[in-house]
């Protein structure tokens, strides 16, 4: 991985209590965790997030990272690897083990003008912080009638396919997509991860940033010159004519695999990467459904009262006369996430997606 980085850059590891990191100060030194120069690099999502966080830290002295084990360890997924070394312990802060404390103090820091980026270690551990996120973070701008902004990002590694224990494989995004005042995005590729984390940090609104942990390691291209698309835009990532399938995060690569398989059998699937779950950018999706007449919504999360349900309802309302079939949901079951040996039966896979496509085509 290091061959993709500018290894010649000098490391500036300010660790004093008040001295700012040298990054971006024009002195010519650049933290090693920054990817410098332009062009396209092929890196894993975890490295793209690391570089995106480094870029945000370098661009704005008010950006702080906080979370459990994010310092010398670099986070349990190494997404913050070397960032404390490069930007100092006052910018990359190991916190006590208390999620409500992390979010609650991040709110106070944002009130003081900082832009905190909190790491929640695993999806299922966000709930001790749920109260601060939903009753405080989400509502403070409205409570202040706009005079206060809440530029807080909460990073949440989420989703299954990693064979882990209870609370480590869940997809709790619907709780937050349901909460007014929050934004919620989820990248599906290293390119989007690199750019969306920087755009989320630049947003003056609170952003829940859901990282599909099963996609941390596969490599993909990152165009370092341009994101090419707005933070909250959805995007057609494969053209097709028979059925539209939509998903987010780790589901997108599975949808693309399903489309490839279906093509061999003569079915043309159009794939939409949702990218943003709150707000949802419906226009590309509706435009697609108006052409294909059929929609399958896929997600790892349980299907009941979920993002997929919301999309099904909205598309039914807004594209009713274009639909040739009901909107089909393919999702995790409405059970607790099962023990890891059963996750293959719980999580939608390519076959379950294609089964959904077949059902949509059967009308």
């Amino acid at each position, binding site marked *: 991985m290091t061959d993709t980085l500018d290894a010649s850059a000098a490391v500036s590891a300010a660790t004093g209590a*008040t001295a700012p990191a040298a990054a971006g100060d024009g002195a010519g030194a650049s933290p090693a965790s920054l990817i410098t120069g332009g062009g396209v690099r092929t890196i894993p999502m975890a490295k793209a997030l690391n570089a995106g966080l480094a870029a945000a830290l370098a661009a704005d002295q008010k950006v*702080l990272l906080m979370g459990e084990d994010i310092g010398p360890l670099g986070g349990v997924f190494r997404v913050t690897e070397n960032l404390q070394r490069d930007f100092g312990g*006052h910018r990359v802060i190991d*916190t*006590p083990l*208390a999620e*409500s*404390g992390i*979010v*609650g*103090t*991040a*709110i*106070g*820091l*944002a*009130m*003081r*003008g*900082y832009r905190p980026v909190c790491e929640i270690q695993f999806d299922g551990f966000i709930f*001790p912080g749920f*109260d*601060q996120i939903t*009753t*405080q973070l989400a*509502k403070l*701008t*409205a*409570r*202040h*009638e*706009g*005079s206060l*902004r*809440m530029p807080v990002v909460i990073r949440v590694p989420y989703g299954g396919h990693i064979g882990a224990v209870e609370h480590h494989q869940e997809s709790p995004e619907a709780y937050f997509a349901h909460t*007014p*005042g929050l*934004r919620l995005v989820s990248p599906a590729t290293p390119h989007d991860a690199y750019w969306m984390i920087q755009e989320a940090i630049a*947003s*003056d*609104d609170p952003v829940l940033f859901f990282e599909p942990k099963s996609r941390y390691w596969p490599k993909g291209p990152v165009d370092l010159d341009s994101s090419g698309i707005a933070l909250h835009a959805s995007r057609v990532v494969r053209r097709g004519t028979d059925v539209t399938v939509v998903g987010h995060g780790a589901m997108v690569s599975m949808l693309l695999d399903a489309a490839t398989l279906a093509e061999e059998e003569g079915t043309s699937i159009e794939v939409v990467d949702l990218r943003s779950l709150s*707000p949802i*950018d419906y226009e590309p999706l509706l435009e697609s459904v108006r052409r294909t007449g059929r929609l399958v919504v896929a997600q790892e999360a349980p299907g009941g009262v979920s993002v997929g349900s919301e999309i099904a309802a909205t598309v039914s309302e807004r594209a009713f006369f274009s639909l040739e079939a009901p909107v089909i949901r393919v999702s995790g079951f409405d059970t607790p996430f099962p023990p890891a040996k059963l996750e293959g039966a719980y999580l939608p896979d390519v076959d379950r997606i294609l089964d959904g496509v077949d059902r949509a085509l059967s009308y």
Partner: protein
Amino acid sequence: MSHTAETLQLLAPDGRLVENESAERYKPIVDGLDESLLQSFHRTMSVIRAFDIEAGNLQRQGQLALWIPSLGQEAAQVGSGYAARPQDHIFPAYREHAVGHIRGLDVVQIIAMLRGLSHGGWVPEEVGNFHLYTLVIGSQTLHATGYAMGVQFDGLIGTGDADRDTAVMVYFGDGATSQGDVNEAFVFAQSYRTPQVFFLQNNHWAISVPVSVQSRTPLFHRPAGFGIPSVQIDGNDVLASYAVTLESLDAARSGEGPRFIEALTYRMGAHTTSDDPTKYRADDEVESWRRRDPIARFETYLRGLGASETFFADVAQEAADFAADARRRTLALEPPAAESMFAHVYSEQHPLMDAQREWLRSYEASFGGDA
């Protein structure tokens, strides 16, 4: 009652200064109080009591959805409120009307909130850094700790510049001490050594549950377990509240880390106007606290110092005028436009807000009015 042998008191209920070893330590502060500040203590306690009673009346007359009385807690709030410096930041719970008034908040903005017209909405930096009320019990303690971390990162402690060094003070009640957030705030405050004072008003009742159910130990013993220096004071003694808060804020500003004050006081009224304290507490308990009334105590002290009858008459008139003015302005408060509910959910453009605002607009217009 939860007074302990260690409870610090400077002014006894009979209006005389306490003379003992711990009181001696604060004597320089008490001796240094000038006449005008002493008069301000009395004026503010009296004005806010009159306002508080008037606001309760407004609720009973159907003008407010709810009122949150502060009656009986004036000394704890006024002493601590006057001890803060202009650059300090105050995170209240929801009963600190006197502190807001001291910091420059128009207390009719509190009424607007309880009349159902806003969720607060004031700009802290425009009202003496007095932050918004927080109704989820104890949540604000973490905001205060985070804010204090920011003050520390900004290098605004321990410089020795009295006009720059900054502290944060957060208010909360005895019920809040059972919340996880309050305990996490202690943890974070100690981890980062924040410039912060935790000010607990122990008014002895978390709605209907007495403090004895929240804790089997005096509450100020808890932060001590986190390593935070803590003290218990007679919260109906405005001099103790002022002196101890002044000392604690100075320590926080100078970089000594967080401090904790437990002020023993009593909620003379209901938790809110929706509450009925006759169902759960005895009249003789209320009566015993009436004899410890913070304003009467301080009035006796001021008379002993030679304050004139005219002064007290003037304060009484000022309090009555303040309450009448609050009533007049309350009755003139109108609800905001319905569309305002969409205005500040997000600070940046949001398609759902735009669509729903437009929908409401056209729905209202469909009735053919001039909306």
